[in-house]
């Protein structure tokens, strides 16, 4: 990859250590993806904010990194480990380390959004705008639904984009890479958001290309299902975009009902849950309204935690949506998400029930809980009356 003279100077450290580190990261990913140059991006969305995921080493790295750097473009940040207003039983040491990470991002000048669904909160740049999204589900959603151009950036590469305003010109930043060679053929109707999540997980397992095609295009898929599909794909694989079948695909992979059942069996590690977990990705306004409709006049029989962006929560509150959910027994957790949350551990729960394939994967693999996977309609049917 060719760097400009100015970029070379920054790589050598003439503008400080953080910019040098950022260019080292961009150079490595540029080489890996065969980029010829760096190009400007309009928005960085950074992953790597939850202390449970990046640990002491990540916290210390960010503390040093943020001392002599500042974001150059709009920069938003993924969820952290807890709700800033509901600290509950979280250990003091966790709180102080998490706060340290949050302070570092604020020092950098990032918007303390603590959300994995920035696309439901912030203005969306024009179709075709280059961005650098770290959160895997958000990168896939941005490419597939919003027409933004983002690679599946990492926590570190999205951070590098934030302070340089750049990303390598490679893969999904280039129009020609945004056409699928592989099509996924399903011979049954996908009936719930859970089916879309499972399909996403299947695709992540089986397609390593940048882009994959489905029979359903972005015009036909609902926001809720698109989020579930993006999160499933992000969890199991490296593919960064889905598009509609257009007859040019050279390879067709069939995904029958039994393939989805196989994945469900792999991820479904409990028959029932002590706790209902909703929100990975965090729920948006649409999903909250849908949930409200489903539980109208009912009471939840188990504790139910809803992970939600603070901005969405505040909007929903004004509309009376949060009141209705709380009356039914739901609890909101803002700023955080179901993945690697310190709020749901083996010490308090044996198993949980969720409609999110991504939550099911990480709650089992990382938090070691049993997970019962059900779609939202069935969760309400079984856990509310």
């Amino acid at each position, binding site marked *: 990859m060719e760097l400009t003279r100015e970029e070379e100077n920054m790589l050598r450290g003439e503008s400080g250590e953080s910019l040098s580190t950022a260019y*080292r*990261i961009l150079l490595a990913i540029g080489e890996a993806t065969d980029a010829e140059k760096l190009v400007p991006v309009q928005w960085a969305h950074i992953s790597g904010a939850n202390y449970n995921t990046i640990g002491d080493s990540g916290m210390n790295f960010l503390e040093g990194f943020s001392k002599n750097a500042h974001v150059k473009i709009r920069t938003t940040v993924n969820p952290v480990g807890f709700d800033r207003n509901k600290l509950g039983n979280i250990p003091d040491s966790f709180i102080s380390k998490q706060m340290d990470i949050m302070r570092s991002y604020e020092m950098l000048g990032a918007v303390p959004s603590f959300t994995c669904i920035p696309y439901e909160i912030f203005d969306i740049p024009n179709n075709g705008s280059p961005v650098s999204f770290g959160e895997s589900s958000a990168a896939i959603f941005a490419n597939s639904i919003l027409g933004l151009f983002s690679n599946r950036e990492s*926590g570190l590469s999205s951070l590098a984009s934030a302070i340089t305003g750049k990303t390598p010109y490679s893969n999904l930043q280039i129009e020609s890479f945004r056409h699928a060679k592989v099509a996924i053929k399903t011979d049954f109707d996908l009936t719930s958001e859970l089916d879309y999540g499972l399909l996403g997980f299947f695709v*992540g397992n089986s397609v390593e290309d940048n882009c994959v095609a489905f029979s359903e295009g972005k015009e036909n898929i609902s926001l809720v299902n698109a989020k579930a599909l993006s999160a499933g794909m992000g969890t199991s694989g*490296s593919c960064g975009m889905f598009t509609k079948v257009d007859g040019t695909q050279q390879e067709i992979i069939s995904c029958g009902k039994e393939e989805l059942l196989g994945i469900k069996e792999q991820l479904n590690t409990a028959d029932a849950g002590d706790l209902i977990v909703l929100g990975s990705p965090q729920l948006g306004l649409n999903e909250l309204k849908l949930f409200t409709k489903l539980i109208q006049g009912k009471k939840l029989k188990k504790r139910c935690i809803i992970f939600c962006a603070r901005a969405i929560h505040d909007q929903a509150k004004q509309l009376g949506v949060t009141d209705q959910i709380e009356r039914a027994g739901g609890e909101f957790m803002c700023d955080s998400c179901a993945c690697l949350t310190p709020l749901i551990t083996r010490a308090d729960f044996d198993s949980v029930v969720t409609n999110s394939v991504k939550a099911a994967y990480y709650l089992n693999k990382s938090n070691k809980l049993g997970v019962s996977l059900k779609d939202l309609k069935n969760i309400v049917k079984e856990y509310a009356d």
Partner: protein
Amino acid sequence: MIAGTNCRKIVGGHATGAALITNERINFLSMINQENGIVEDNQHELFGSPVKNTVLIFPGSIGSSVGAYSIFSLKMNLCAPAAIICMGKADIVTASGCAISNIPLVDKLDNTSFIVIKPGMQVNVDADQSLVSIRSPTV
């Protein structure tokens, strides 16, 4: 040294370690214990293997974008691979994680070299010279 092959440098440096080889991709956030470097996902073919001081030879990373920080954590906890070789092409998570961890990373080896390198062999990765070589022919 009995066999060597060219490769592409992604992150510079050089290191030697025992080859740890898998054809399965890795989610660095969820599959490897960051405190001790042991693969703890019982569905992965490397289940139970430590990555510490090895030359990890694998197709690439999947899943969480935070995996780059997980590679850095392994390094800070002194249980990271000594070097990493990606079969095919290195990916963004692995490349960025190695870049800040100073773990030599190379990719694009000749296909035949994977027949030569067997698990446990001492492999030398010299990213700066774009060279991978086997130090000992036996395991």
